[in-house]
């Protein structure tokens, strides 16, 4: 069997939040490796720390202690500016509520992360058209989010997530706001991104049907990562 290299390496990670004078532990001693080109689902009850872990992997929250290495870079040592720059090229985000900018068209929303690159207008256009073609929305480029269905909006959000060609996509309940048919379309699309474009996807979900699409399912409970690894392949 082929041994995959770990693209995400988390060691002894602790994270807590302060509520008034109280310190609430959210993640406790998490150690986790995620292999390159893997589709991992992170499951667990509400408040178990799934989204917090996802945010820490994506570099949008700070750890209390421990390390998070992505593609060999310890992101816990990066400054805010360094993290912002790192995110723009290494991580793609997919949110539950799509979070598209309502005043921008599908094309413009997908183009947004490319504005931070040094690409020319023509190059950006090519990248965006390619991304929207992959998510099968070439005919909806000029539509505004309000003119698209939930599933279509999520596909635009996915195009926005991978248009800069990051190695890792993090998805927080990507099907949580969709009907079953649309959810299936999104999951199929994410599966294609793993198989055809070689992306690594880490997906937080409550939905066992969504988790079934993942290669590996990990469970979090009260901030502790369950040792059992469920493999769906």
């Amino acid at each position, binding site marked *: 069997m082929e041994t995959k290299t770990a693209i995400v390496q988390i060691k002894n990670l602790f994270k807590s939040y302060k509520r008034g004078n109280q310190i609430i532990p959210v993640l406790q001693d998490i150690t986790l490796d995620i292999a390159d080109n893997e589709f991992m689902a992170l499951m667990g009850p509400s408040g178990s720390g799934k989204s*917090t872990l996802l*945010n820490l992997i*994506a570099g*949008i*929250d700070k750890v209390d202690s421990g390390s998070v290495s992505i593609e060999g870079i310890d992101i816990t040592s990066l400054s*805010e*500016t360094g993290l*912002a*720059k790192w*995110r*723009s*090229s290494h*991580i793609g*985000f997919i*949110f*539950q*509520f799509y*979070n598209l*900018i*309502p*005043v*921008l068209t599908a*094309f*413009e929303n997908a*183009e*947004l*992360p490319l*504005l*931070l690159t040094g690409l020319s207008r023509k190059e950006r256009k090519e990248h965006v058209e390619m991304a929207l073609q992959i998510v099968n929305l070439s005919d909806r480029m000029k539509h505004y989010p309000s003119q698209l269905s939930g599933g279509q909006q999520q596909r635009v959000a996915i195009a*926005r997530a991978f248009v800069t060609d990051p190695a890792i996509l993090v998805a927080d309940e990507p099907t949580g706001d969709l009907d079953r048919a649309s959810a299936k379309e999104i999951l199929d699309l994410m599966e294609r991104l793993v198989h055809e474009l070689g992306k690594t996807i880490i997906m937080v979900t409550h939905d066992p049907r969504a988790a079934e699409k993942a290669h590996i399912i990990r469970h979090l409970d009260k901030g502790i990562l369950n040792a059992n690894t469920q493999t769906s392949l």
Partner: protein
Amino acid sequence: MQILKLLFKNSFRHKLRTSLTVFGITIAILAFGLLRTVVSAWYAGVESSSASRLVTRNSISIIFFLPLSYKEKIRQIPGVKDVSYATWFGGVYISEKNFIPNFAVDVKTVFDLWPEFVLSEDQKNAFIRDRKSCVAGRKIAQKYGWKIGDTITLKGTIFPGNWDFVLRGIYKGKYKSSDETQLFFHWDYLNESLKKTATNRADHVGWFTVNVTNPDLASDVAAAIDKTFKNSLAETITETEKAFQMGFVSMTEAIVIAVRIVSFVVIVIIMAVMANTMAMTARERIGEYAIMKTLGFGGWHIAGLIFGESLIISFIGCALGIAATYPAANAFGDAMSTYFPIFNVQRETIYMDIAATFIVGIVAAVFPAWRAVKVSIADGLRRIG
């Protein structure tokens, strides 16, 4: 897609709110512009004063006259080029609400000393020839529909009686700041009458206007004039025309200061309105800014979007306000021409409009931008949904 496009689209996302804010800024800039123009109009006489003209008046008060005989003595003082004289007539045209600045002047010298009042040679000669004639400014002639040859009757308040003058000329201002609302007639005509009715006032004038050969010598010439008449029955005070005009303005300085303060209060009020708009906008978009941060946009990008949006809204209001200022100032100037003969929107006023708008746009965005930059992505994302 460019960031600018996003800025413009964001600016008009809440059309009603943006429109009301723009309207507020438009009104504020219009009010600010008009109030500043009122202040400028107040100082118009001072601003249009010549550095080479001095005014010699009675040292007790302007209401006390000076003997006409001083003219020749003043003329002989070194540094003096020309001397003219005038008396405030204070006549009323039809009724007291029709205020016209009217003066009895030395017709031979008046247009030499005030080259900014332009009168054709024909009209000047006709004016000099006819002792019962007068010359009026273009604006005042237009206002009352006067034409050359018309008889204008002024009711004397200082010099009682009805005084008829035949209009022989209409002068134009050489500059935008030249006063075109005055009326001049022969001092000789007034003096003739005074010789019969008030002999103690005859052969006296209100003040002398002295043209100096070199403006740098103005203070020396002024001192020499006053020295000449020291210990006489009518001692003099000679000052530059600017100081003379300023003396009138300073009598009403409290009003000018009040108008100035109000103009700045208007800006402070609109700053608060704009800040409220930007605070609401930024609060609503905290989640969106968090999304942009996750995509790699830094704090400066987010701050730039907020400052940019604030400046766009402010400057749209400013542009409309400036555009409205000119017709409003014209209408206001026409309606108030009795009090403000020169009511022009100064270039400095427009610069101040722009500076005030820039300050409003920046100040209004400081707190929302700071908050949007400071909020963590995780906190921002929690506010979505």
